[in-house]
């Protein structure tokens, strides 16, 4: 629990102001923690008097950590296509493997995987573990989790990374639970701690308001799902050498309780946001669906994609697949044009890696201007139609 050193506490109230759970109050010049303290630890770092601490001594079932070695990456393959995040993870995994002086293994599950292992090797893998079975042609949580669990138990890697995609976020928690391993969701930063080689996993929480760095001190493997488009892939190098290993799997482990009746690729569920150079994005300031049409018009003229803040999606002006932010997509185009978007942190977290950010907002104090390369204080309904007319004229 949260320990408060009553001698050191000055009752300054910094912890009270900053507790995201409203769990601390200052009473009679002393901080007091309530039952709703979640032990997140944010107050501990903020306390100027050093009066707060969290007792972490009594943790965890013991595991002989030295038995676990090597970095693994789950390289997602679906419907004949390698997920882009697979190559990004190989880039990140290569760096971690080199820091640890261990091999980087790509784990590839599916069916009809022919030349995919070579692609993975050219992007950084030292080894590729392949399970190619008809039962793995469609994704099911049971079969994918069983196979992955068995492979991990066989070889005992110290780190397992997977993309924070629909598939990764679905079956990786099952694997982690089966292995009693710590799993950190949706990481945006991965580093090796110099002192003990532990994996430092950094991720946003509270809609991106807080960044937290997480470790798994007593359990192995250390597992993370990693947000797409954050890590950088290595350029393909066909001269790289690697080993392709066919993994034998117990057929009983390939069955699934949930049956896939049909798998539909749907254009309307897709968005090209992660592949375009320009993204035009609209928020609450567009007022309605009609106002939002300006965004699509500008995007079309610039050959870009259409994005939206959560406010615009929640208002029903555009589909969820266009939402950018903590609970939507992460994008990093060359140019991101934010129109009528206030810049709540949960949106910013999904687009702050864009090369250039252009922000248009009526409110000069809107936080979006804090992260803009170019800022225009003004009415989107005055500015956008004129920009559209000027671009059409050219």
């Amino acid at each position, binding site marked *: 629990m949260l320990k408060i050193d009553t001698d050191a506490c000055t009752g300054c109230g910094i912890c009270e102001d900053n507790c995201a759970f409203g769990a601390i109050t200052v009473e009679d010049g002393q901080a007091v923690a309530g039952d709703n303290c979640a032990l997140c630890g944010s107050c501990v770092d903020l306390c100027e008097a050093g009066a707060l601490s969290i007792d972490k001594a009594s943790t965890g079932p013991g595991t002989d950590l030295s038995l676990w070695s090597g970095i693994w990456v789950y390289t997602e393959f679906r419907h004949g296509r390698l997920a882009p995040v697979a190559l990004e993870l190989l880039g990140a995994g290569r760096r971690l493997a080199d820091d640890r002086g261990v091999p980087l293994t790509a784990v590839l599950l599916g069916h009809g995987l022919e030349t995919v292992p070579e692609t993975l090797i050219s992007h950084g893998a030292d080894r590729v573990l392949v399970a190619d079975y008809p039962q793995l042609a469609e994704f099911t949580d049971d079969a994918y989790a069983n196979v992955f669990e068995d492979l991990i138990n066989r070889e005992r890697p110290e780190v397992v990374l997977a993309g924070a995609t629909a598939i990764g976020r679905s079956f990786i928690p099952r694997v982690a639970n089966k292995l009693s391993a710590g799993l950190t969701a949706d990481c945006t930063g991965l580093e090796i701690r110099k002192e003990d080689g532990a994996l430092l996993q950094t991720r946003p929480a509270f809609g991106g308001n807080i960044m937290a760095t997480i470790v798994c001190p007593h359990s192995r493997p250390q597992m993370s799902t990693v947000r797409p488009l954050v890590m950088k892939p290595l350029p393909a190098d066909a001269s790289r050498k690697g080993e392709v290993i066919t993994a034998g799997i117990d057929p009983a482990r390939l069955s699934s309780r949930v049956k896939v009746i049909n798998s539909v690729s749907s254009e309307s569920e897709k968005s090209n946001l992660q592949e375009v150079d320009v993204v035009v994005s609209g928020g609450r300031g567009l007022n309605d669906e009609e106002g939002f049409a300006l965004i699509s018009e500008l995007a079309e003229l610039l050959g870009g994609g259409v994005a939206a803040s959560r406010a615009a999606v929640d208002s029903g002006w555009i589909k969820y697949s266009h939402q950018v932010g903590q609970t939507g997509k992460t994008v990093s185009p060359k140019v991101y044009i934010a129109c009528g978007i206030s810049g709540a942190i949960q949106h910013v977290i999904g687009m702050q890696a864009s090369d250039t950010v252009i922000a248009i907002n009526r409110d000069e104090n809107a936080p979006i201007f804090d992260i803009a*390369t170019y800022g225009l204080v003004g009415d989107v309904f005055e500015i956008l139609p004129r920009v559209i007319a000027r671009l059409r004229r050219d």
Partner: protein
Amino acid sequence: MKIVVCVKQVPDAKDVRLDPKTNTLAREGVESIMNPYDRHALEEAVRLKEKVGGTVVALSMGPPQAGEVLREAVACGADEAVLVSDRAFAGADTWATSYTLARAVRKVGFDLVICGKQAIDGDTAQVGPGLACRLDIPYVTCVRAVTGVDGDKLELQRLMDDGYDELEMPLPGLFTVVREINEPRVPSLKGKMRARKIEITTLSGGDIDADPACLGLAGSPTQVVKVFSPQFNRDKTMICGEVEAQVEELVAVLEKLV
């Protein structure tokens, strides 16, 4: 059908901003709310009950004040409310939370468990699958439609990154929902009256025969070692003046960049 819906009380994070001067969270006026995804989970449970009959149990793990979201759940159609609460649960990560919830859900009994796809405070989306794993039942995440109910199985549509999957899940089972699955109802007057009166069942760690070593911070394989505010810094140019001048300058910038 006995349906357990897991609901969580969370801080309403969406309007929280960073104080630009102190670079800390400004949380004035931030209330505690029912996790928005759980609202959709509850609505789907109530709709299923209306279709095939049964009971809906709203279950929440949290401090005593989480009873508020349970009353809200009852106002929106849940029949029973269970609060799983113990100081020993504090600091639980998703592994310890899945363990605790599984003990509680087993104690309550179920044919189907429905959860929101994730909670907006942690955004991990790990507890639904973790809970199903602990209960040793099949699960489907990110369900956007229940297209069929047939005695001992459900037909579900799961949202994927490239479209959707049509699936058949046997019961007992668990699924998590995305927002587009339904439009949650507002509480009825009758519901609100029931919510005021309902007796919330409280379960402690002892009540669910939990192993103390698996609870709270002590039972959590992941630990937070550092918390900080995100930094986004950029050189900024403001484009000022009359609208026409702003537009000319913006178009010039765009022509340079695109």
